[in-house]
């Protein structure tokens, strides 16, 4: 490969996600006049909100060289806890707004457990989070019983479905999470060390960094984000449901990887992940407009992941590099 092509590919790797988002947007806008409307923009922002919150947490996990496959199960458990803790048709609890931090705290506890299993019991995060996710699903099923509990807290539901200055409230909440994630990533020791741990864990250890501690905190942070996302989605739908996170795991990991965080760790930013989330949301939304069969959406999303993965790994390809 000549140097010029390699340079172009390298450049694409950094600005690629943004270019892809722009291309998708322009393409759909030209294809259908209904796409580039304020109403549709609101729909896009609204549907990007929950995935964005998840992606913020996942970015930290992937950047430190781990993976979190527990988010669907974790969201299920947090969704049920949230629905049963606020005014609902099943229990006497009526925590109101406190339901949000409660759900987030349950998520954080699950994430903490993920982190402890990975660091203390030395189970690879792939297995540990897969197992814990399944436990989360089980807890959710126990809490749910036959009939999913309905959320009867009117202010919460109005907030989740409402807008402020024309912007969906959930999108605003997600933007706040993004801003918080960006601050943690750029301006705290925790965030900076997530680059260090993912970049070269052995160097981090030899430098005297308490690697295990930072790993655990990052898992807990991702769990907290998943709990929050589950509460947001439950408030919007008006019920606590076992299936609330269905499909979110692949979508989240896809968005993070498309957004420039390498699966091998050490790089990436929550801002890139936000672009990834938007690109995927625009894609799903736009395909409805151009009349693509909804059955094709998954396949196209998969194809995009593959292309992104090839581009992301292009510069480090080596005949003996082992891809796991």
């Amino acid at each position, binding site marked *: 490969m000549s140097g010029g092509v390699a340079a172009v590919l390298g450049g694409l790797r950094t600005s690629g996600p943004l270019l892809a988002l722009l291309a998708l947007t322009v393409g759909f806008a030209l294809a259908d006049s209904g796409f580039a409307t304020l109403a549709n923009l609101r729909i896009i922002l609204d549907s990007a909100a929950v995935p964005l919150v998840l992606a913020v947490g996942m970015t930290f996990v992937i950047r430190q060289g781990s993976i979190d496959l527990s988010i669907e199960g974790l969201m299920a458990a947090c969704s049920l806890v949230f629905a049963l803790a606020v005014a609902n048709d099943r229990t006497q609890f009526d925590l109101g707004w406190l339901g949000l931090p409660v759900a987030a705290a349950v998520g954080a506890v699950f994430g903490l457990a993920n982190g402890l299993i990975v660091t203390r019991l030395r189970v690879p995060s792939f297995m540990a989070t897969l197992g814990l996710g399944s436990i989360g699903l089980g807890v959710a099923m126990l809490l749910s019983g036959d009939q999913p509990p309905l959320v009867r807290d009117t202010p919460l539901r109005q907030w989740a479905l409402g807008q402020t200055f024309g912007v969906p409230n959930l999108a605003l909440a997600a933007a706040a999470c993004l801003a918080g994630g960006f601050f943690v990533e750029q301006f705290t020791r925790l965030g900076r060390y997530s680059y260090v741990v993912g*970049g070269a864990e052995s160097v981090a250890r030899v430098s*005297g960094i308490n690697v295990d501690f930072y790993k655990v905190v990052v898992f807990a942070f991702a769990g907290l984000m998943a709990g929050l996302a589950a509460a947001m989605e439950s408030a919007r739908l008006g019920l606590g449901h076992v299936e609330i996170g269905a499909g979110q795991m692949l979508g989240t990991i896809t968005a993070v990887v498309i957004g420039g965080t390498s699966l091998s760790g050490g790089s990436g930013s929550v801002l890139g992940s936000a672009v990834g989330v938007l690109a995927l949301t625009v894609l799903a939304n736009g395909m409805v407009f151009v009349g693509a069969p909804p059955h094709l959406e998954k396949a196209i999303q998969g194809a995009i992941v593959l292309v992104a993965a090839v581009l992301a790994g292009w510069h480090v390809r080596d005949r003996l590099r082992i891809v796991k």
Partner: protein
Amino acid sequence: MTAVALRAEGLSKRFGDTDALRDVTLEVRPCEVVGLVGENGAGKSTLLKLLAGVIEPDVGQIILRGAPVRWRKVRDAADAGIGMMFQEPSLIPGISVAENILLAHEGPGIRLGIVRWRKLFALARAWLVKLGMTISPAAATQSLSFSERQLVAFARALAVEARTREAPILLLDEPTSALDDRGVAAVLQTVEALRTRASVVFVSHRLEEVLRVCDRIYVMKDGRCLAEREAGTLTVEALEQLMVGHEISTDIARDAARPHVAASVCLEVRELSRRDKYADVSLALRHGEVMGIAGAAGSGCEELCRTLFGIDAPQSGTMLLEGRTVALRDPADAVAHGIGYVPAERASEGIIGAMSVAANMTLAHLARFCGRWAIDRRREQDVAERWIERLRIATPSATTRASDLSGGNQQKVALAKWLVGRRPRVLILDHPLRGLDVLARRDILETIRELARDGVGIVIVADSLDELLAVSDTVVVMRDGRVSARYSIAEDRPTRQAILESMV
């Protein structure tokens, strides 16, 4: 103040079944620059890592400023003012230069968990300035050149100075190895400047440098300290003499005449180049010839071996196998052309520890052991047992897990891997004797000679010149990616000093 800043007393360290360090005693006085020289594998890096708390000694103790210490973590050593610059790259690519320099001791650069970027950059800049570097502390580390990274790693070692009120002790493991002249000058100047306030242990292959900056020099070989000298009394020649030592490896005698080297060339490369690794390398290896390639770290000899086995493609030049041009696509292609490779990393690339000895031997030529439907276990077993006997591999049985064998026997298994199928045309041995004891070395060397007698062309890169001289018919010396000298052992047997001189 005590007269000794840091003292290592009778340190020993074993890795698996090899002694990396044997009863080493060394002293560093306040404000003294101590040089540490020796061939690769002599134990210099192991010694520094023990002193810096990266690994723990099996025997012996470390005495810091008069009091015995025991490092439980690297952090303990760093807090006591011991800074280390590692030989291998130790910077994190995805973060800024400032973060790398101050990693894990940001001090006021992070308060209450919040990074104060301006403060952090200012702190880091101070260390960069001491090295005469103008790069921005905010620069992304992956954007730096190799020599800039090396200097940043040096700045990182320097930064322990801020952590202790005592005079710091800096352990520098080949700080100049990959630097251009300007970088070398900056490092040497800084070491000179440090002399007023710090003690330094300085490891380098470039002996002139060592003589220039060091007050005292320790010479190491095979995990032992051979000699200690005042630098003022030494010349480069005298130091080389000391490094090579008295004939320790008399056990590796070579058989006198080598009439079995055939006239026909089995592997030839012409003007082979790979950017930043090696350039214009032309070699011809005959059937039955053992060609030793000598070179210090960074000389390109290991990269050349990788190319010969199809791991990295050359950018220009041609490669011919028995007269025919080949362009190897990958290692599998190399194997198909009859080239075998025994990598330096025995444990991770040479053998598969969890598999049996027999399975390890046959894995590169499995097709030869397949019956109509499946692998012919009986045949696999028979062939494995034959080679176990022939190479005198000490193993309870062919079904023993390879990881249960000693290092020398593992290496024989790795060699046997290329022998069980069709006889290879070329075998490339990357440091085949690394970490082996004397008996195992002799065994492996005998096996190599035996293979050469069978007509296999062998390329060998080894740590020690003794070993290269003992087994090779031809010695090629590389320096800075180019062939700097060639010797035919039968006609003009070079002295070790001559080789060392063309290496550095």
